[in-house]
């Protein structure tokens, strides 16, 4: 089975029904994408499929075909995607476990809607649980990433 992840192609020998999450984590050793629920309830496993956020825990590898996967490891070369920069600026993470998923969802949102209002943030981000409760900062960071970054900060 062929898979394109972070612009690299792989040939995988896995069961076709294996969710992408486990192919990434256990086979490709890309462990930045997290397991939280396995039933599309928490968003910890969010990756991009041709730029759209998907829950990799319920996406079998056989369903992916030619589509390109981007994981947190492939979001930027030097941890400098605008969303990551804003996340650092606001100091969002606590335990950090949910943050790959939060960032991937936020990056996809901003791609489509560079200046989301609170309602748009609610709609896009409510599939991602943060047990540490960093929502206040996530919201702030998304607003910040939507603005041109002030280089002095």
């Amino acid at each position: 089975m062929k898979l394109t992840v972070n612009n690299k192609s792989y040939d995988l020998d896995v069961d076709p029904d294996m969710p992408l999450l486990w192919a990434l984590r256990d086979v490709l050793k890309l462990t930045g994408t997290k397991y939280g629920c396995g039933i599309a309830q928490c968003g910890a496993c969010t990756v991009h499929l041709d730029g759209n956020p998907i829950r990799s825990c319920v996406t079998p590898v056989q369903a992916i075909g030619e589509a390109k996967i981007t994981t947190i490891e492939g979001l930027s070369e030097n941890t400098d995607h605008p969303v990551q920069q804003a996340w650092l600026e606001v100091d969002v993470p606590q335990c950090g476990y949910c943050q790959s998923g939060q960032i991937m969802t936020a990056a996809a949102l901003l791609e489509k809607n560079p200046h989301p209002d609170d309602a748009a943030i609610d709609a896009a981000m409510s599939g991602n649980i943060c047990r540490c409760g960093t929502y206040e900062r996530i919201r702030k960071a998304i607003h910040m990433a939507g603005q041109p970054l002030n280089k002095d900060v």
Partner: protein
Amino acid sequence: MIMKTNQQSRRNFLISSGLGTAGLLLTFSIPTACSRKLGGSREIQDFNAYLGIGKDGTVRVILSHVEMGQGIWTTLPMLIAEELDCDWKKIIVTHAPPGEPYIHTSYGVQMTGSSSSTYSEFDRYRMAGATARAMLISAAATRLGIDPSNCTTDSGHVLAGDRKIVYGELVEDAGKLTAPEQVSLKDPKDWKYIGTSMKRLDGKVKINGQAEYGLDKDLPGLQIAVVAHPPFFGAKVISYDATECLSINGVSQVVQIPTGLAVLATNFWSAKKGRDVLQVEWDLPVNSVTTTTQFEAYRNLAKSKGIVTQESGNVSEGLATSNTKLEMEYCLPYLAHACMEPMNCTIDFDGQQAEIWAGVQMPMEDRKKASEVLGIPEGQIQLHTLFMGGAFGRRTTFDSDFVVEAAHIAKTVRKPIKLVWTREDDMRAGYYRAAFLHDVKVGLDKNGHPQAWQHRVVGQSIHEQGTPFSAFVKNGIDGTSVEGARNSRYLDHTPHISIELHSTKNEVPVLWWRSVGHSHIAFAMESAIDELAHAAGKDPVAYRRELLDSKRHLATLNLAAEKSGWGKRLPDGHYQGIAVHESFRSYVAHVVEVSLENGKPKVQKVTCAIDCGLAVNPDGVKAQMEGGIIFGLSAALYGEITMDNGSAVQSNFHDYQMVRMSDAPKIEVFIVDSEEQMGGAGEPCVPPVAPALTNAIFAATGTRIRTLPVMTHLIL
């Protein structure tokens, strides 16, 4: 003040934490480094057990406490940096291995908990930095042929007149010196880091996928283990058939362990598929805890007097002679910790030696438990603590449950194994916040103040489950079951008091859950006080002011009230509720502002005030408040594990719901400028959340919610 780090005086550390030690010459012997070298390619000279410096100037801070999200990865290095005067950008951080020097300064075990990490290490880590700085100065003075008193330091350099030597150049010489027995600590007015908000040192690795959590551990030839656990608490395997399971691609073997059957495979998906088709016959449940009947039984128990934990006057008389009598019953369900990262543990055991990787709050105890199972001495086990995707108390278990389970598998398999719990395993395996019922009867005097307070607490004891902490149970009283009710400052002037406890027993394992007993007690106390205020016809803030003498309660109450605009005009349809509670040596007040949407409350805003004494990293304290408010709201609005005949009904986030972005209120946090004793931050923010919420709902609707969670009620 003289301090020594011997066994006996360790407990006294705590007492010294505060501003009083600054500027004094302190006698102190900092434990030297553990013999086992920590990993890493840089050449780093250990100065003591907590700190090493590399020739390139890298400063390695070794954490006696573990990072679970609470920010200790940043706060302990701040304490060292303050006294070492190093370059903040050159700090790297690592968790300590199990070891004597890392034993908690007041609890006698190596552990992270009770919101105590910062204040319990405030002296030890500052002194670790100060002694290393003194050694660097001494080495520089010798090299320059001058007296050490002519040297100062600045950001990783020793300065003497116009000469300047970087720490890295001095490391080799300084490392050979004996650590001084006397050092003086900086005057607080000279602090550069303490009291200043510092960004998290683990921030970057947590936004690019590089942070390694327990679940991310990989080893060559690693087998993933998924365990079929009993469907009921206490059930055992009678027989099983693994034929179909073993036919699944990738599954290698099935092993029986005391807690069930472990399916091993090359990857999680195969192991889980294997478990799904494993045929197991379990024996019948040994108990039959069912939530509804449990609360009926608790209600019956509350009719009789419990073990008295605090008593004064004559409560029956006080109730009988009161002007107004109120009777209230509060019920709180079992709650799961639901850490974002499910429990897991990796072990590589070859029969002689073992290495363990896990996210645990008591590494030394966990290693001990693993050694008992593996049958090798603790010294032959290396335990590595990795980042934790949340903990909230769940990773401090008495029986090291998931570590021991992994050890049983590793012992049989003798290959590197990683035990992975699914979310369902994690949520249904127990170790919950216990369900509690509070029966509260209060008599008011003619001023509307409580003249009699009878409070019966009914629920399982954490410490009576045969734990190493059973010493906490005194005369049948587990202090954590009544903490916050016993000796409540609201009752300072109440003549007739009886705070009683019925400790119940059953098979459902219970544990400390972020804020422990305060998580249920504060709901009962702060709801009751609010009910009394309304019965007395007084404003809830004014009424609390009348009852409370405690300066720190009042400081947070007043600050939260002021900043939230209490008593001022609110947006149409918005209502406020307030609560204030002391726990883990800190004081927190919240004002929750709600509106109603379709008969359900919507939390619009939470205004929080905390007095934790000195806030070492103010933004870190704020982050804990924000997170604790969401954690408390999740529990108050949705949190409920119900039992059906000894089995947990809820299993995943679809039926054990959390506050999500769309529910998340605006949060404002204010820190009281305080020179009082330092307290914790991780837990104290949780207890007042639920009562402030239900008090707001009462203000909005006149409906008093006495049973949590809120969302099970329709409020109109």
